[in-house]
């Protein structure tokens, strides 16, 4: 942390955790952006969907004084957080385990926490760039007004951070459940798609059948989308929420619970080798 620790000079001690973790973040981002599938289905997904759905349904009303594109923007920002964290980590770690990278890293003095910090750093950078791009598209293409009150951006910050944390630990946790990267893809992708449909991303949440609302309320995406609506939609829209309020307290509780569940899952399931490796 204090020394400049040039690679050529002899060091007696291993590089600091901060330094290794920073290197990991850089490598993670490079690997991510060199993979067309990741860029297409994780990074660009919200922007592409916003443009498509905004162009088709943009003028329709989602509620009192709120256009569909405005409503959809909140859902896409929440979806982006889930994709960048949950889907990204679940698939990339399953793949890295399958291909042998985790085993290779485990054979080096890289601190295990540096690997996890690298993943989390990547998710934060990725998620913020993705959100910025989504918001920019909404403003430039669809003339959406973004909030100016600091209190709303404060809400954005904690919803974003809690959502990212929950998505990250759950993504890392489930990455070890499938036997292979292929199986991970087949299991994770449908979960992510179904959650989007039942959590009020593509449809106005109040319009969904009651049982679907109840089901969605168990999972984080519903709460993340609701949290983003409380940031990006006018307060008048709260009357169109099933609960009649933004439910910030309950939101924190549900997301925090998922963070605890996800962390427990990580500790129980994480492994450096494939499951069939003995």
């Amino acid at each position, binding site marked *: 942390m204090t020394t400049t620790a040039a*690679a*050529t000079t*002899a*060091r*007696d*001690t*291993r*590089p600091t955790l901060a*330094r*290794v973790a920073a*290197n990991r973040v850089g*490598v993670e981002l*490079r*690997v991510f952006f*060199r*993979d067309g599938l990741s860029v297409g289905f994780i990074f660009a997904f919200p922007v592409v969907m916003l443009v498509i759905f905004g162009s088709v349904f943009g003028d329709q009303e989602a509620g009192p004084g709120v256009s569909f594109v405005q409503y959809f923007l909140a859902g896409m920002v929440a979806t982006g957080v889930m994709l960048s964290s949950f889907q990204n980590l679940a698939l990339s770690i399953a793949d*890295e385990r399958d*291909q*042998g*990278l985790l*085993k*290779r890293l*485990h*054979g*080096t*003095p*890289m*601190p295990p926490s540096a690997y996890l910090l690298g993943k989390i750093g990547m998710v934060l950078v990725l998620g913020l760039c993705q959100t910025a791009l989504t918001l920019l598209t909404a403003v430039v293409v669809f003339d959406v007004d973004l909030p100016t009150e600091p209190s709303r951006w404060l809400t954005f910050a904690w919803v974003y951070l809690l959502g990212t944390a929950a998505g990250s630990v759950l993504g890392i946790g489930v990455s070890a459940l499938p036997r292979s990267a292929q199986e991970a893809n087949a299991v994770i992708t449908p979960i992510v798609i179904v959650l989007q449909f039942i959590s009020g991303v593509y449809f106005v949440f109040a319009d969904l059948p009651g049982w679907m609302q109840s089901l969605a309320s168990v999972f984080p995406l519903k709460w993340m989308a609701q949290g983003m609506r409380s940031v990006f939609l006018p307060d008048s829209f709260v009357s169109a929420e099933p609960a009649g309020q933004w439910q910030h307290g309950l939101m924190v509780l549900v997301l925090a619970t998922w963070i605890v569940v996800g962390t427990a899952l990580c500790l129980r399931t994480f492994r*450096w*080798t494939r499951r069939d*490796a*003995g």
Partner: protein
Amino acid sequence: MADTDLAVRVRGLSKRYGDHQALDGLDLDVQRGETFALLGPNGAGKTTAVEILEGHRQRDGGEVAVLGADPGTAGLDWRARIGVVLQSGSDSGALSVTELVRHFAGFYPRPRDPDEVIDAVGLREKARTRARSLSGGQRRRLDVALGIVGRPELLFLDEPTTGFDPQARRQFWGLIGSLAEEGTTILLTTHYLDEAEHLADRVGVITSGRMVEVSEPTTLGGRLQATATVRWTDADGRHAERTTTPTALVEQLISRRPGAEVADLEVLRPTLEETYLAMVGDDTTEVAR
């Protein structure tokens, strides 16, 4: 115990997978600075043994010390002193050779210069190539580069040249030889006898999870090697006699008809390969593949 001279000390190592006893009381000593080859057919337990020594697998029983530490509990400072080249790797395809070697150098306290390592493994011209675009042999050399960039005292190589063409194998042997000359202790597994013969100071043969012999490559299977077969032809026809004293037998043949040629005289010793196949016995069909 003079364990300070030993890079690896294994006593009675055992490991079981379900009904299969993969390792059954394996003993192994590797001296510091030596190149030791573990030889054996597929399924003999070579990889299981090496992966326990690398800390990748837990053992069921026995004593293991690698650089003086138990791999099952040793920490990151211990890992900084070993280098591991696993059997196969297809990861990190999106990164270039240089990116990968530099990145891995950043894990170690005293790494080798990444560019020098890339030169040493003969990948200079491929330095900017992404790993997924490398050929099988180039990929393997990248694996070695990542294994040695941390300047390991002890290097594990698990079947490093499987799938190489003869020329690539020769080049690879040169690389391993130069590491050994620099003082790196090397423990490699292989099922190529010529590889063991070329690289190793000592060879250990494993079958069914046990070490059946440890020796210098030239004296492997010494007892078997001691028996020669003498063949000749005389008026009674073709003869073949197995003997531990072929010289005496040849003398005797000559004395029967002094000055005359002994027709079709041959003295045959088993090749290393024949010796080895005789040692691994039932598993030979696997090796012959």
